[in-house]
């Protein structure tokens, strides 16, 4: 069932991959999200890979994931009739999200100032790769370029090799989620005072925000972090973050400290001792005070201990599988995690116990697809995906006829004129 949380609110979604997640989150929360697509379809329909590797406008996995729950209409914004129809839709909508190059919407008469005259309640959210004021406002920004501009790329990869991005580009997802937050931020006062506003999301800034505040290091400590492969790079010490095991990798940061840190280290050392992998010095170590390289400078002695510990843990983990290690760690409260693949995630007991994944019927593809479920569990108004991604223009009739009241003859004429 569609969520009650945002039911009754409507969003026009004119965003590509720089903002697709925004509308998806709104749809999950129960809003009526209408994707406004050009004649050939939104570019997100052409993002590979495709379901079963069959390229087709309805089979992009990206689109299937991030257009779920949206309706689709086709509108030619290049034609006056198409623009007039968008204005009609704006009258009946609460939110609009777009990610065109800055200035484009204004140049075709669909900028905020104009649409706010039509509907003063409108919240108009623009996702911009490099804002709307700097020299970069005119820049072309594919995802890897924004990722590079914001800092995380420099810190990902091995020394001496090129900086990396992930196999699934991330910058647009951060921007899309931020657009959802900012739109709802403007929604709160709008519902009280009746006035909408324009919202700008800066994609580069969204990427910078993922750096865990490392941007402050050069200011406060005089140097910046450099990428170090499978090590957590900290100034003055490298700490191993990934360990090979029998069938893949395990991630952990071997540090003590108060509370759960010391419980974890004691638990790991005890387990290693049982299996004959612990060194003598580890048995009576005060792990509460052992946080070198993270919370304290690593001395020569600490370096020897770090290297010995990390090597022994590596030999120990190499004897077991991801699942064996994680299962034991859960019961001993040792802080680690498998470097999970999609297959591991699909089989995870915790997600199963919480009924996380959702199966959605795609009668258009003659099958059901499984999607990530609710991004939050809400007690009074549960949310989550309930409908599949739309076919191109699937809801033209519903939206133009039922919502806007355009009759069949006029629709035919608009179609013939290329507006729809």
């Amino acid at each position, binding site marked *: 069932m569609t969520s009650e949380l945002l039911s009754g609110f409507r969003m026009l979604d004119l965003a590509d991959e720089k903002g697709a997640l925004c509308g998806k989150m709104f749809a999950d929360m129960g809003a009526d999200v209408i994707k406004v697509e050009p004649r050939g379809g939104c570019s997100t329909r052409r993002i590979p890979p495709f379901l079963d590797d069959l390229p087709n406008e309805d089979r992009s996995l990206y689109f299937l994931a991030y257009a779920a729950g949206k309706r689709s209409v086709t509108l030619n914004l290049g034609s006056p009739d198409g623009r007039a129809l968008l204005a009609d839709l704006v009258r009946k909508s609460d939110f609009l999200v777009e990610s065109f190059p800055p200035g484009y919407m204004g140049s075709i008469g669909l900028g905020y100032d104009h649409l706010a005259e039509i509907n003063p309640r409108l919240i108009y959210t623009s996702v911009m790769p490099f804002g709307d004021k*700097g020299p970069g406002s*005119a820049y072309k*920004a594919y995802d890897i370029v924004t990722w590079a501009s914001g800092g995380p790329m420099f810190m990902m990869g091995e020394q001496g090799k090129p900086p990396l991005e992930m196999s699934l580009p991330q910058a647009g997802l951060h921007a899309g989620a931020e657009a959802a937050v900012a739109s709802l931020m403007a929604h709160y006062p709008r519902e009280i005072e009746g006035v909408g506003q324009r919202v700008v*999301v800066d994609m580069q800034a969204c990427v910078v925000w993922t750096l865990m505040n490392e941007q402050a290091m*050069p200011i406060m400590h005089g140097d910046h972090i450099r990428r170090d492969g499978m090590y957590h790079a900290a100034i003055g010490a490298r700490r191993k973050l990934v360990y090979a095991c029998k069938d893949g990798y395990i991630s952990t940061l071997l540090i003590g400290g108060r509370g759960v840190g010391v419980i974890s280290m004691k638990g790991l050392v005890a387990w290693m001792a049982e299996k004959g992998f612990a060194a003598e010095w580890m048995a009576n170590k005060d792990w509460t005070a052992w946080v070198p390289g993270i919370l304290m400078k690593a001395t020569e002695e600490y370096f020897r201990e770090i290297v010995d510990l990390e090597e022994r843990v590596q030999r120990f983990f190499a004897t077991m599988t991801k699942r064996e290690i994680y299962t034991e760690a859960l019961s001993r409260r040792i802080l680690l*995690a498998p470097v999970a693949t999609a297959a591991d995630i699909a089989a995870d*007991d915790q997600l199963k116990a919480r009924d996380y994944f959702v199966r959605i019927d795609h009668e258009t593809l003659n099958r059901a697809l499984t999607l990530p479920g609710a991004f*939050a569990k809400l007690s009074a*108004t549960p949310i989550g995906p309930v409908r599949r991604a739309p076919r191109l223009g699937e809801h033209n009739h519903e939206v133009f006829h039922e919502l806007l009241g355009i009759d069949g003859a006029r629709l035919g004429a608009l179609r013939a004129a290329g507006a729809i």
Partner: protein
Amino acid sequence: MRRYALEGVHVLDFAWVGVGPITTKYLADNGADVIRVESLARPDVLRLAPPWKDAQPGINSSQFFASYNTSKKAITLDLGKPRARELVLKLLPWADVVAESFTPKALRKWELDYDHLRAHKPDIVMLSTCMQGQTGPNAMYPGYGQLMAALSGFYHISGYSPGAPPCPPYGAYSDFIAPRFAACALLAALDYRRRTGRGQYIDVSQYEAALHNIAPALVDYFASGRVLGPRGNRSERYAPHGAYRCADQGSEERWIALAIANDDEWLAMLSVFGNPPADGRFATMAMRIEDRTALDEFVGGLVRGFEARSLTAALQAAGVSAYPVQNCLDLHHDENLEAFGFWHWLDHKAMGSSPYEGLQHRLTGTPGELRSPAPTLGEHNDEILGGMLGLDAAEIAQLKEEQVVF
């Protein structure tokens, strides 16, 4: 129109470390009154984490903590003590929202969990966020964002080639995904409450929120059994696509990221380099994708002598998507972040003046901002216990003596 979007919204914030405080920071920077409840009995671990003022640790010297707790006030209450609980219940009528991010058993132990709080305030909106959610076999398993990023699949899609070891994204990556989801749930729930009078409980699993950022790979696996793995910077849509080394700057490596989506952009890129004799192997997208190793070498050779920043300007002027691969210091000199007004200088009580990351969005009608630097531990004890709760100086002194206020 009001000055800030969330003027008049009141938040009681028990959250600590990353996801919780970052979520309530959204509200605080946009005008909500947020009171953090902390205690020296269990200090927020970020208060002890670097970077520190003058590289010296101290409970009020962490710029890390300060970055995620701007615009908030702070009191100290040792929630393990019954008298502290009474004071929380006295503050509760004031609050619209309660947020917390302990492992699920903590608030139950102190009888401050949702069921207890709503008995006192039925329409409270409460957010709990922890690693893997409030229920299920792993609910009590503690952790941190680096581990959740591994568990939610990001490490496995980070590396140079299929089968190569992971090169994880930096830091506690999922800590910077979940807050945006949590903030949306919270803001929507707050408005739902305003419309209907109904409060509710929000359970955000950092893990489950993060999985939304790899959704296509999960849909694919469930449908076809295909597992997405590491593949360097290779893309099915762009060629070339990656980071290429430019002229070094002193001892610092300099790289440029660029991506070419079609043959027109490829020709535009070549024109920037004076139309070198590009060998016919790379004329079409299909050909460039076919021989990416040679393509990367070719492009690497073209950019090697150039300065990354001026090359970016030249490429972008020709319609080619490119940008320097920036390090953390570069960000402070980035003209686009500057133009957006991203950096905010704040004068912190214990740390003095330094730059902080600002908001990543701008509400043009009711812009949020970093309204005040993060509070020192218990900075507002007297103001809130005295002013809001009406305790007199002697009572407050007594509570400090008994380490209830601690």
